[in-house]
């Protein structure tokens, strides 16, 4: 190995968990104990981000940039370590659980101060829960258990008692999503019902206060967010050096991904907050070999794209179309008709793995190999379509239903997201070969979400971000009443027997403590899902993270934000001046 290629650390590992285990050996506890001298303090890193924040109030703003800002400037009681998926203490130093698994007692770290110097106490935690359950907040859904809120009390300044309405297997994992707010800054607004208006983008940064490693120093709309070290941040590394290592972190807003890549390659930025595009991997690989970049293969993504057909009963479809479009055999025929290897090669240039369901191999113990699949077999696809009464009656190469109407439907996808538009084009091409005509319509994200809300579409190809691999954290997807039960969300009661069965299994899964039993229950859920294919999955990309050689101490993970999830220990390499 040459000296230059040493800088280019390219970890090619079978799965994220293997990577996690290796990295975790050095990193558990949050401090880079493996290094004798430890990284030096100081310096600045520049990350590019594609979108603007919508608010500095994470409780009302739910987009990924808002979440990223919250991760940089605010802290949680506990955090999910993205490399091991284990829960790790943050503001809560330790905790105990009652025998009935309903009451958690959290002991808070002492001597912690907000960035404005005000001490952090249990009152801030109680306040944060009140704010989260406030009608103006978007958090409530994430903090409910079976539709009920948690009860939060504070027996003293450094103890918090959480009482769950029913047994909830993931337990405190939900707190990873709850940034703790400064009560002294916001309590008046909460009382007056103005919490939703607080901390908008026009708020002077000095008015914000948090417990995170950085404070917002400057926001120039359309250009950048500048974060500086929080002088009161409570974490230290193993050598006792106060964190974060960085003096400054700049989040440059670069909406165009081409520009983002050029900046990174020109050395004007150090990392991107989104994953590398497949077509950039090759040139990044060359740059890494020449020592100009670090490129890390962090494993298979957990964020997958899916194709689903609108199965809502109120979908605007004629009865004749509904009969085939909403049928299970039609979805299976699509699955048989799409050559997933070709899909991987065309959409991701080979840097992906074929999948058949939402749980990819990077979901650790939750992944079940050997589920029923419907792999590429155009003959079986044609047979299934024929079974639905669809045949090419006029010899034009496109099937017709019994009334003579062509078998044609539209797939909506997100404009400007290359892998999605390309995927839709591949699906379109492959379905054409079995006589199904597809119209691909690219819409911007808002229009797409709006149509999803009103149910005014036939099929969609879109993606989800998975923040936690524990299926109990993703019930909104699995339960028939869930908002992210894409094909037919928010059902008052399950529309099909198998959805009722999944509901039942998921409810048991959520309230069961024993992990092996939970995994068994979830395997059954996945089996039912695979049998009825309510949504079609084709490929999970391999995630590559590119960084400048200056970035030290990074442990990139497949989930967003791949590098900045661990921002407090990021450092600039010695001699890494720009």
């Amino acid at each position, binding site marked *: 190995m040459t000296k230059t290629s040493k800088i280019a650390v390219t970890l090619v590992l079978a799965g994220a968990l293997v990577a996690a285990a290796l990295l975790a050996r050095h990193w558990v506890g949050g401090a880079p104990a493996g290094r004798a001298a430890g990284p030096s303090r100081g310096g600045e890193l520049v990350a590019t981000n594609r979108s603007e924040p919508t608010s500095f109030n994470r409780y009302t703003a739910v987009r990924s940039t808002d979440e990223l800002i919250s991760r940089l400037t605010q802290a949680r009681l506990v955090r999910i370590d993205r490399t091991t998926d284990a829960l790790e203490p943050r503001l809560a130093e330790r905790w105990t659980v009652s025998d009935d698994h309903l009451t958690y007692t959290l002991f808070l770290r002492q001597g912690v101060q907000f960035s404005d110097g005000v001490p952090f106490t249990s009152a801030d935690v109680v306040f944060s829960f009140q704010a989260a359950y406030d009608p103006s907040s978007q958090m409530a859904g994430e903090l409910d258990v079976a539709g009920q809120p948690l009860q939060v009390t504070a027996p003293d300044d450094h103890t918090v008692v959480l009482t769950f309405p029913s047994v909830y297997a993931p337990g405190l994992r939900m707190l990873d999503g709850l940034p703790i707010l400064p009560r002294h800054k916001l309590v008046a607004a909460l009382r007056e019902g103005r919490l939703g208006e607080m901390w908008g983008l026009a708020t002077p940064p000095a008015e914000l206060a948090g417990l995170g490693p950085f404070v917002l120093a400057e926001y120039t709309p359309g250009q950048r967010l500048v974060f500086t070290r929080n002088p009161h941040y409570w974490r230290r590394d193993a050598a006792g050096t106060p964190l974060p290592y960085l003096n400054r972190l700049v989040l440059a807003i670069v909406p165009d991904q081409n520009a983002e890549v050029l900046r990174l390659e020109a050395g004007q930025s150090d990392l991107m907050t989104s994953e590398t595009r497949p077509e950039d991997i090759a040139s990044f690989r060359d740059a890494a070999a020449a020592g100009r970049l670090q490129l890390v293969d962090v494993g298979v993504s957990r964020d997958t794209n899916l194709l689903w057909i609108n199965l809502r009963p109120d979908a605007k479809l004629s009865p004749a179309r509904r009969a085939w479009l909403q049928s299970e055999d039609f979805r299976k025929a699509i699955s048989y008709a799409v050559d997933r290897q070709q899909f991987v090669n*065309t959409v991701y240039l080979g840097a992906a793995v074929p999948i058949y369901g939402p749980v990819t191999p990077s979901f650790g113990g939750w992944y079940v190999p050997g589920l029923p699949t419907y792999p590429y077999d155009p003959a079986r696809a044609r047979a299934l379509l024929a079974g639905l009464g669809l045949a090419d009656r006029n010899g034009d190469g496109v099937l017709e239903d019994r009334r003579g109407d062509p078998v044609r439907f539209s797939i909506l996808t997100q404009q400007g997201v290359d892998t999605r538009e390309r995927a839709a*084009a591949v699906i379109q091409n492959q379905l054409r070969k079995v006589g199904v005509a597809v119209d691909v319509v690219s819409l911007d994200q808002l229009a797409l979400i709006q149509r999803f809300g009103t149910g005014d579409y036939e099929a969609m190809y879109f993606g989800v971000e998975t923040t936690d691999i524990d299926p109990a954290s993703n019930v909104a997807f699995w339960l028939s009443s869930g908002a992210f039960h894409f094909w037919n969300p928010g059902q008052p009661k399950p529309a099909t027997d198998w959805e009722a069965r999944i509901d039942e299994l998921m409810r048991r899964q959520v309230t069961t403590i024993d992990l092996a039993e939970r995994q068994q229950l979830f395997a059954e859920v996945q089996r039912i899902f695979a049998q009825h294919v309510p949504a079609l999955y084709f490929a999970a990309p391999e995630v590559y993270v590119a960084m400048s050689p200056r970035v030290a101490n990074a442990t990139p993970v497949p989930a967003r934000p791949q590098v900045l999830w661990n921002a407090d220990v990021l450092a600039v390499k010695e001699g890494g001046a720009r």
Partner: protein
Amino acid sequence: MTRALGRLVVVLVVVAAAAAPWLAPHGSSDQFADYLNAPPMRLHLLDTGGRWHRPFVHPLRLVDRLESRYVEDDSRRVPVRWFAGGHLWSTDAPDAPLLLLGADRLGRDVFSRLLFGARASVGVALAGTLGALLIGVLVGGLAGYAGGLADELAMQAADFVLILPAVYVVLALRATMPLVLEPARIFVLIATILALVGWPMAARGVRAIIAAERRRDYAAAARSLGAGHLRVLVRHLLPAARGFLAVQATLLVPSFILAEATLSFVGLGFVEPTPSWGTMLYEAARNVRDLGAFPWLLSPAAAIVLVALAVQLATAGDTGSGLLWRAGPGRARNLQID
């Protein structure tokens, strides 16, 4: 001479567009998964041993999928088939498609798409230009000839259209229409939009020319000989605007080809997999690096330049001299004829 050349190229392009299904070796949306961004194939006559053959190609072998790097496999010769399967030329081997201008990011033949795209792009641009010039001549001619209030109103209307933020108007229009439109309807829609957006420039120029010409002696002579207004306008005055209209056409055709791309981008134009030069260019420009690495993706740009040049040459004046010179109002040969 140059005018004949220009006309020849225009005719060739129109014929190529019309005969696209026969001239193109492949369908416009056929994807060859192992040929993503493949480079153009060279037609060979000589094999590696130095023997002569009928035209053939060597299949490409994928070396690195991430880089889209290929090498010619010169151990195999795939002869070009002529007049087979409804195509002028093609190959027999399904794993060795004939890619004369390389392939795009979905592994589709750029040459075939260029031909099919000419139907959409050139067709829509020509139809739109014709429409814009017709409206422009009508409005500009009447305004210039009548003068006064009619002139005032017509030019105000032209100015109003010029300052409209066209893309937003079009977007608002699009929102009122169904999500999925037939390609034929899209064609009519785009041509109409282009005509409605493009006429004011033509109208203003025509008006200026007519307004100046109608005061000249030959116009007065025609009127005093008893010619009616319509005859004076159409037979005597409008020919003076011919040079100007020719210039307008050469400016409008390429800009309409690009406008079609813009419309397609905002969701009103042709959609995948229907190719047009504009959508092909938009696809190519998605990743700037691709433009350098796969320059054949830019062939629609070359085609646009070629068509623009040909239209310019074909519409050049009888003397074949420069167009801008002709564009000046009042410089018309009617002076000598009449």
